[in-house]
């Protein structure tokens, strides 16, 4: 891919890998801020949820009880930014007793092996 035509519409495959629970640390919230910015750059954005990161898109979050803003509705707004490639690792869901029905946005559930293959296809991977 040419590096000279940044303004000429280079599109790379970006993947944001969410591995951490939504609360307890700020990582999940600040990843989401990165995701929203990358949408403005018209890149091919992918989101992956694995490990405790699957809790980020669980329905029924009420963090007001711990004095923290509930940012989970933002995931539902991603569609409006043309960010629709959300992948969740099957094993991570199962290990935590969750199913696709527990999630607040449409996702594609894929196996750990397939997640690895998908990552290998990406140009830029940003993890937290």
């Amino acid at each position: 891919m040419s590096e000279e035509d940044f303004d000429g519409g280079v599109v790379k495959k970006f993947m944001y890998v969410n591995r951490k629970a939504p609360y307890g640390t700020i990582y999940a919230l600040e990843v989401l801020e990165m995701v929203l910015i990358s949408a403005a750059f018209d890149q091919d954005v992918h989101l992956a949820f694995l490990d405790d990161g699957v809790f980020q898109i669980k329905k029924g979050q009420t963090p007001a009880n711990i004095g923290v803003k509930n940012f989970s509705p933002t995931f539902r707004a991603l569609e409006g930014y043309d960010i629709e490639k959300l992948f969740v690792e099957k094993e991570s869901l199962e290990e935590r007793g969750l199913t696709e029905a527990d999630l607040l946005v449409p996702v594609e559930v894929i196996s750990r092996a397939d997640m690895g293959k998908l990552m290998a296809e990406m140009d830029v991977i940003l993890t937290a």
Partner: protein
Amino acid sequence: MKFGILVNEGPYTHQAADTAYQFAKAALEKGHEVFRVFFYYDGVNNANALTEPPTDDRNVVKNWQKLAEQYKLDMVVCVAAGLRRGIVEKTLAPGFRISGLGQLIEAGIQCDRIVTFGD
């Protein structure tokens, strides 16, 4: 190779800040290009001008500054992450600049590799 470096952790609490610096230094010494170092999350604290470690310890902030001076490194602190943590123009160490997350995305587009340092 053209590298972009993302520093996600603050100095002293986390080894990631030192490792990022050592990686950048080694890459530059080997003749690679470092397009940009971007500081995000607690990584913005790498640019705190008020940092004053004990004299028998390394100075992470000064290490970055020296490297930037020697190689004309572009060191960018995320404005939103910085505001949250009190890293603003007033507290910003010389050699760093404050800008938006778009600078990280641009690095992702321009570089051969983005290397992330942090958990």
